């Protein structure tokens, strides 16, 4: 996080760096991505490195039935570090098994999304000055939302106080609750956003993951149930910060964008300096 801070002027284009000149990033996105993929590419470019790869598997050998293991072995030979997003849980772990080069998990199905977590922690620390003791409400799809899983564990590790707000069917998986409790976290569990408002310093809203619902009827039942708008925020702490990994559908109204609560666009930008720091550290190129 400290290195991310140092990367900030380079990420903003105010300074130039050739820290990763000659390094190649293998960027494999089997699932669509805007922010994660582009911020990794931007991070690599800002540090004078090169990115190769694909952002959807059409046309690649995967369409011909190639296994992930074989794809990874090839990209491992072409690059110095691999970024992988894949629809199956545990795919990054499998990739790390077959690759000699470091593998960065950019989202594995409904599993984890650790670089998002690091940029979320960075954003909270930068805004609130600390993480320890901060009340963070995780709101929305806690079952399928992989960012919420990684973030809950990391926040517990840093001593934040957790509030899980979701309908019963989308509550945090028991594996994550167990991991949080092992780290000493005692999450409060609510079903309505309003219940979390008096305490929350940060509200981390997630999109209901339509694509991960086995049954569309179940999606319809909960879609739109967790909406943040200015009317709701009347009862919030004045310095409540609202975060969202984006993309959003309608869970945060656009009217909130103009309020001091909105932190999500800053959060999205922070992906660049944080991923610059991650790449530099993994490639052993930082000072």
């Amino acid at each position, binding site marked *: 996080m400290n290195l991310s801070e140092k990367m900030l002027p380079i990420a903003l284009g105010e300074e130039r760096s050739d820290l990763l000149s000659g390094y190649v990033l293998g960027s494999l996105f089997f699932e669509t991505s805007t922010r994660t993929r582009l911020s990794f590419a931007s991070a690599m470019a800002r540090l004078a490195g090169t990115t190769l790869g694909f952002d959807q598997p059409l046309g690649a050998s995967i369409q011909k039935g190639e*296994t*992930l*293991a074989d794809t990874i072995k090839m990209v491992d030979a072409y690059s110095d570090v691999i970024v992988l997003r*894949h*629809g*199956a*849980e*545990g*795919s990054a*772990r*499998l990739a790390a*098994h077959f690759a000699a080069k470091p593998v960065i998990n950019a989202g*594995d*199905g*409904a*599993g*984890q999304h650790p670089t998002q977590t690091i940029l979320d922690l960075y954003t909270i620390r930068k805004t609130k000055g600390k993480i320890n003791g901060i009340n963070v409400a995780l709101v929305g799809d806690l079952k399928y939302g992989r960012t919420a899983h990684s973030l809950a564990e990391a926040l517990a590790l840093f001593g934040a106080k957790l509030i899980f707000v979701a309908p019963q069917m989308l509550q945090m998986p*028991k*594996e994550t609750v*167990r991991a949080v409790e092992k780290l000493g976290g005692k999450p409060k569990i609510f079903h309505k956003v309003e219940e979390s408002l008096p305490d929350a310093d940060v509200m981390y809203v997630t999109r209901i993951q339509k694509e991960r619902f086995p049954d569309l009827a179940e999606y319809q039942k909960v879609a739109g149930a967790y909406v943040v708008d200015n009317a709701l925020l009347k009862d919030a702490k004045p310095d409540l910060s609202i975060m969202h990994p984006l993309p959003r559908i309608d869970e945060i109204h656009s009217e909130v964008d103009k309020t001091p609560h909105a932190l999500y666009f800053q959060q999205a930008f922070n992906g660049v300096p944080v991923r610059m720091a991650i790449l530099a550290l993994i490639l052993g190129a930082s000072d």
Partner: protein
Amino acid sequence: MKEFKVTPIRNGTVIDHISFGMALKVLRIIGISGENAQSTVSMLLHVPSKKAEWKDVVKIEDRELDPKELDKIALISPNATINIIRDYNVAEKFIVDVPEIVKGIVKCQNPGCITNHNEPIEPEFVVESKKPLLLRCIYCERLMSDVSEYLI
């Protein structure tokens, strides 16, 4: 005089203290079906037991089990005892033990796990708890407790 429902075997393996109802699964684990059995296999279901109320027992003649088979039995019947019989005598006797790592014998119950996607890799689990059994997939991190339907 004690009545033997099944006569003693000369050489082979007696798997005793199998959790009641699990004997058929034990046979499946050790790959015994009507087509491939090379010797006599006896199975006793719902036998009175001193340790538990009821147990199952399997006797396989002329065969000694390998460690991978024993690991699988441990996963579905952690109190089972293995008696290796040679010339009517118990040559070796031990209780099955759930290993620390379970590799290649159980499938992950999570259909979204990469190990269920035709990748060239064996499913692997860390044993979080032996009693009650709790396995954690090292790939997707999902926990599973009932493995009997997921044995490979």
